[in-house]
């Protein structure tokens, strides 16, 4: 009997794992996910002893989902700033190579860093690990129902608390420093920025969708297009240090582009 019970438990756990469910009934988001920061969408042609090989990269995790994603919130292409602030957004965008901290190896912060490279899901918290040119940040996000910290210092990745809404992990993030942008096109924010990240499984993939609210600068919350991130077998690796060397070579304000 004991043997049968053990077998049943093992099978249940195995089935749950296959279905992406953890033992506590929540979907399992744990895993290593595709590197989803912009990389050149070009390939490498390698000539070795007369043999030619060409290898490209998979940039799918960076782009908005190509097809409709079940469970996604309605989204729009761009945030709507208060009328009196739109000129500032344009000016930041027009001088992006001078004004964007990410150009100068600055931390992108949440949500600009995008989905994590690795998720470790524990019973009362989830751990996000990232690879980024500015460094490799981590976030430890409680999911035990606790509120935001009352006396935390503002930071690039904010103060996060998570909760489950059905099969979706909803991460609520506040208390940011003000020198990040939430999008590359000059999307500045205030200290009131409130980011909601949603994570759920779609088959073997992870879906990531972000809503940014900032009543001091936006007329309405902005929900971005969802991104579908494939699982990856590639282990995380420490990112080399970032050394900005291009700014002194720029001869005009043409956009260099970030992410």
């Amino acid at each position: 009997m004991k043997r049968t019970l053990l077998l049943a438990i093992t099978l249940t756990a195995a089935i749950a794992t296959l279905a992406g469910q953890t033992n506590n009934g929540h979907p399992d988001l744990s895993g290593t996910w595709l590197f989803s920061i912009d990389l050149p969408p070009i390939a490498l042609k390698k000539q070795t002893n007369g043999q030619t090989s060409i290898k490209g990269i998979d940039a799918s995790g960076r782009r908005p989902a190509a097809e409709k994603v079940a469970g996604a919130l309605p989204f729009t292409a761009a945030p709507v700033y208060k009328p009196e602030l739109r000129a500032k957004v344009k000016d930041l965008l027009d001088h992006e190579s001078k004004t964007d901290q990410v150009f100068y190896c600055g931390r992108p912060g949440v949500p600009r860093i995008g989905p994590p490279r690795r998720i470790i899901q524990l019973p009362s918290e989830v751990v996000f690990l990232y690879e980024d040119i500015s460094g490799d940040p981590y976030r430890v996000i409680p999911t035990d129902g606790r509120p935001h910290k009352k006396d935390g210092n503002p930071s690039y990745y904010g103060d996060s608390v998570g909760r489950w809404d059905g099969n979706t992990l909803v991460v609520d993030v506040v208390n940011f420093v003000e020198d990040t942008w939430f999008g590359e096109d000059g999307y500045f924010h205030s200290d009131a920025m409130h980011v909601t990240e949603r994570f759920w499984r779609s088959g073997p993939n992870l879906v990531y969708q972000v809503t940014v609210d900032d009543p001091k600068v936006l007329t309405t919350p902005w929900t971005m297009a969802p991104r579908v991130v494939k699982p990856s077998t590639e282990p995380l690796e420490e990112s080399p240090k970032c050394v900005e060397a291009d700014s002194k070579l720029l001869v005009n304000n043409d956009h260099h582009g970030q992410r």
Partner: protein
Amino acid sequence: MRRVLLAAVMLLAGSSPVLAHHSTTAEFDMAHRMTLSGTLTKIDWVNPHIVVFIDAKSTDGGGKAAWKFESNPPAWFRRVGVSRADFAKAIGQTVTVEGNRAKDGSLYGYLLKITYADGNSLELVVPGGDR
């Protein structure tokens, strides 16, 4: 990071505005692809661009010209199966590089291809457009 993405696309695509909404026209002369031979002296495996150091012969007669060529980010090279060692193995050897020179006239460029003394090479290409 898109800086490197767009840099590479624009450099490979010449000055075509079709392939990118951001450009590297602020930094590199994308209309001309230069070729240079010299001694590979150093590799900086850093973000957001790796940097390859080449000592070439000075064009004004005598002496060396110390060139630097940046290229794609380490994360890109990693994902196309190239590590620092693939460059570093040729330190001290003569290599030929192709790239786009900085507009400000400095000895700086964007590396598109490197050919080693043994004839092996690494080259950035447009997917599906084997050049």
